[in-house]
């Protein structure tokens, strides 16, 4: 029934969108606007999708027949007006311009409003898209219902060091990990009242803990451990190559401060990385490639498949066999970032030619694998000619946020797409901003590692800062 209503409302919206204001001469085609919000699907509550008309003529804009405030081509919805428009189920936008003294109308376009709610917050890191220098970076959260962004932690408070991999537990803002590097190095773990710093290098693992993924039910976090290096391409479409010389996957038990692993997730013959638990916690997915060397000479021969291994959190034991979930190397490709939807139906991943650090690969695209049938296909509705990479699911499995370099090829931005029960994705929309063209043009940071959250991280910043700066950290150890 719900699907029927949705289909009917989309059909009605399409009919509405095809109408042109009969009183004005028409201009064939959609108006040139930025960001391209034509035909996108948005959640029922979202910040206004302000946009800019890129033509030089005076313009006026109507949404569902209501005039929208515009100034020098910037179309700025009032909050109350936008709320009303969202409530109507679909928004038909008509852009009219004055040419040779006469008002003319472009073909109207629609913004479809889904009934599926989106998690209200997204966390991410803002970092210069390069290389190794940063005076300023930080981990931020954004209220998706407004334009409000606040810092969870900024490195201007911690000596300008690197901080990364902020990962909440299945969207829970009170339970997360992230790493800080350099002088105050360690892994910060928050879990309700617990806030601690961990020293995560052990004698048995090749590095400190790196890419995290929480267990859905227990206080455990899967991590990769990686010997990661980076080189700069002398030419060609990709600028940077981030590669592993070795990597393994382990599980960290937060209560006992212990790491555990299976010989199948920690072998010298394979590079294992990017772990992710299934929503029932019984499977641990990760990427695995036959080890190649020497690196970086062999950088384009590392091809990662997606594999999984059974995991029992109660007994802290792994299964005794690996299953290949997606054999990317058989296609001559490499897969990264497996992310299972919380309803357990789909696995979204990034596919690219080689290696694992797809954010620097212009060919990287998102693929969706139906876990029931094992069939995988590219997500054509969301992919672009440039990098489409790191992605996470909303807690109801109906929305996906991912980072893309489609706009200028370098500065990553966040896009959101609706995924229906059948795995169909809609045209993605850019994270809304007040006056978005000006905002994004002046922004000298990339959005990195977006994660949906069901609420705001509400942690005393001084307490967090004191833990980062003053705590010596708790050593973790291998499980006996």
């Amino acid at each position, binding site marked *: 029934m719900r699907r029927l209503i949705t289909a009917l409302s989309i059909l009605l919206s399409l009919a509405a969108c095809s109408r042109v204001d009969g009183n004005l001469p028409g201009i064939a085609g959609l108006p040139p606007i930025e960001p391209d919000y034509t035909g996108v699907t948005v959640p029922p509550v979202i910040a206004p999708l302000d946009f800019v008309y890129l033509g030089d003529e005076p313009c006026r804009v109507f949404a569902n027949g209501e005039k929208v405030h515009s100034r020098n081509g910037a179309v700025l919805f009032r909050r109350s007006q936008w709320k009303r428009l969202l409530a109507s189920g679909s928004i038909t936008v008509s852009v009219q311009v004055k040419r040779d003294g006469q008002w003319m109308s472009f073909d109207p376009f629609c913004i479809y409003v889904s009934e599926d709610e989106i998690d209200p917050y997204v966390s991410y890191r803002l970092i210069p898209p390069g290389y190794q220098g*940063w005076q300023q970076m930080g981990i931020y959260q954004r209220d998706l219902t407004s334009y409000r962004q606040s810092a969870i932690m900024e490195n201007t408070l911690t000596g300008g060091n690197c901080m990364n991999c902020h990962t909440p537990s299945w969207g829970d803002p009170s339970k997360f990990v992230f790493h800080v590097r350099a002088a105050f190095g360690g892994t910060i773990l928050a879990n309700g009242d617990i806030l601690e710093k961990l020293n995560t290098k052990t004698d048995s693992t090749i590095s400190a803990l790196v890419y995290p993924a929480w267990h859905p039910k227990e206080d455990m976090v899967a991590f990769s451990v990686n010997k990661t290096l980076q080189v700069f391409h*002398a030419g060609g479409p990709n600028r940077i190559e981030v590669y592993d010389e070795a990597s393994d996957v382990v599980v960290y038990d937060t209560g006992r401060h212990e790491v555990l692993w299976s010989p199948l997730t920690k072998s010298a013959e394979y590079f294992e990385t990017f772990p992710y638990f299934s929503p029932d916690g019984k499977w641990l997915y990760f990427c695995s490639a036959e080890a190649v060397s020497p690196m970086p000479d062999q950088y384009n021969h590392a091809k990662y498949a997606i594999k999984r291994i059974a995991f029992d959190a109660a007994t802290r034991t792994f299964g005794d066999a690996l299953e290949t979930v997606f054999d990317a190397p058989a296609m001559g490709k490499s897969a990264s970032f497996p992310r299972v939807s919380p309803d357990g139906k789909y696995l979204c991943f990034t596919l690219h030619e080689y290696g694992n650090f797809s954010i620097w690969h212009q060919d990287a695209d998102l693929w969706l694998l139906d876990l029931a049938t094992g069939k995988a296909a590219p997500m054509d509705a969301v992919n672009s000619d440039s990098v489409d990479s790191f992605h996470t699911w909303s807690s109801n499995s109906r929305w996906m946020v991912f980072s893309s370099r489609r706009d200028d090829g*370098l500065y990553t931005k966040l896009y959101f797409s609706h995924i229906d029960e059948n795995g169909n994705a809609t045209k993605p929309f850019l994270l809304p901003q007040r006056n978005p063209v000006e905002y994004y043009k002046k922004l000298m940071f990339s959005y990195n590692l977006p994660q949906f959250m069901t609420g705001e991280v509400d942690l005393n910043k*001084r307490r967090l800062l004191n833990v980062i700066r003053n705590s010596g950290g708790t050593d973790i150890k291998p499980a006996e």
Partner: protein
Amino acid sequence: MITGLPYILAYREQQQLFLFDKAYIAGVLFKVGGLSTLIGRFIVQFFWNPALACVLVSILLAASAFITWLAFRRSASDWGLLPLCLVPALLMGACITDGALHFDAVVSWMLCLGALAWYIKLESGRAWRAVVITVFLYFAAGPAAIVFAVTAFLDDCLKGRFSSASSIPVAFACAFAAYAFAWVPTLNTALTPALFYDLDAPMPFVHWAPWIAIPAVALISGLFRLLSPRKGLCLAIACASLIAFLPVSKRIAGKYCTDYTSALYQFEHFTVNEDWDGLIKCCKKAEWRPLTANYLNMALSYKGKLCEDLFKYDQRGPISLVIAHKERSIDVTQAHTMFAMGNIAAAQDVAFNILQSLNGFCPAMLKMNAVIEILRGSYGVADKYLTLLEKAPHYRAWARQQRHFLWNDEAVEDDSFLGPKRKSFPDSGFAMYGDPMTELYRILESNPSDKRAMDYALSFLMLAKDMNSVCQIVNRFYGSPALQSLPDNVQEAVLFQSEYLRNVGNLYYFDEEWCLSHGVTHETIRRFEDFKQASMQNGGKAPGRFRGSFWYYLTAVQI
């Protein structure tokens, strides 16, 4: 030291980019000490001209001395106090030779002095005004508010009143609030001028001096008032203080402004202004160091005289041309050198790191990144950088000129500077991964017409005394657009190798016929005969008259 000071100030301009932009201004302003930062950056944008920088700083310091005098004078004609009031300004002038101390410190310190001058002359409402000034000053100028509160209280005490007593706890309360709400990283930055020092770097104690000097002047002035000594004695004490602090200031400045650091700042100034003659002149005067030689050779390269004039200057191996860092650094010299060599990806790697590693955006590196994005055809990114540069008055015209190239491949390829550089991106390989010569070979294979890369490659090999590779390059590229003729030094290297191979019995490679058909002239052959005879008579070393030739470098310089 004195000649270096203007360039130290000028380099400050290269560590920030003040933008006439609402979002930028709001971003800077709404922080502890934000107003000081904003005003500081506004002033420093004019430091692109070293002379102007000196004038502005002199005016500011003179004004601060005058404000100090206005604050603490006993009467309108109390000129005897003025030499004493020059002491804090003198100390601040010395401290700002330390590049890690942000110019915000000067502004904050001046706001504190201004607030004192205003408060001390107030007749009524002193108590509540002191509190309001303290709160405002804390958020506008950071820990300057504490100096204000302490000095105001001291001055009040010496005048027998205590109206500003409450401002001291208020100042500390502001500092603790800033700490508690994590507006500042540490208590140290909340309470002390360390707020204006590089992130988490320990601030040397000398930088406290201009701040301590403010209450010190208040105390001395107050004592003069209380004890009422003769005017002459006051003047003598004030002058003696000033004279005593002259060597102290000189010592502070001397610590940060050594001959070598001054020279580096000068090199950078001439480089960002593309004044190659000025750079050559400056390098000739400076002490020889690898970086000095890097700048000199880059200037020669831009003048098109690298190969020709290489050995007219002191060279000490390939390090004279480029320092191959094992670790990526934020070394502007390296970015400039790599860019000159045509190693664009390496230049961008370094330039982007520098851009993001300083307190603001380094304008020269932002320009370089914009140009490189144009070369890459990443016009959206270039547009972003040009948009920023257009918001800075000094760079606006340049940025607008570059807009012509955006989304216009034809214009880029037709441009005499950009066109050849665009062709120099190799198809494969990593930048700054192997030695510089490997990367130069790759660039030459991608773009054999890159004259500057060719000059760098030949110079590198000659400096490494690798004559065989010089011959290989000549064999491969002679006659190509980048190597239409052989510079004298290269001819000398080729002839030497030819002679060496003949002596070891290998008659098949690079013989005289090959030399003559690859750009070696009869004149060079004649000079070579002369060199051989002369060096034989000189114990195997080239005599002084061959100074400036490759042969002299080969035989007389140890690398």
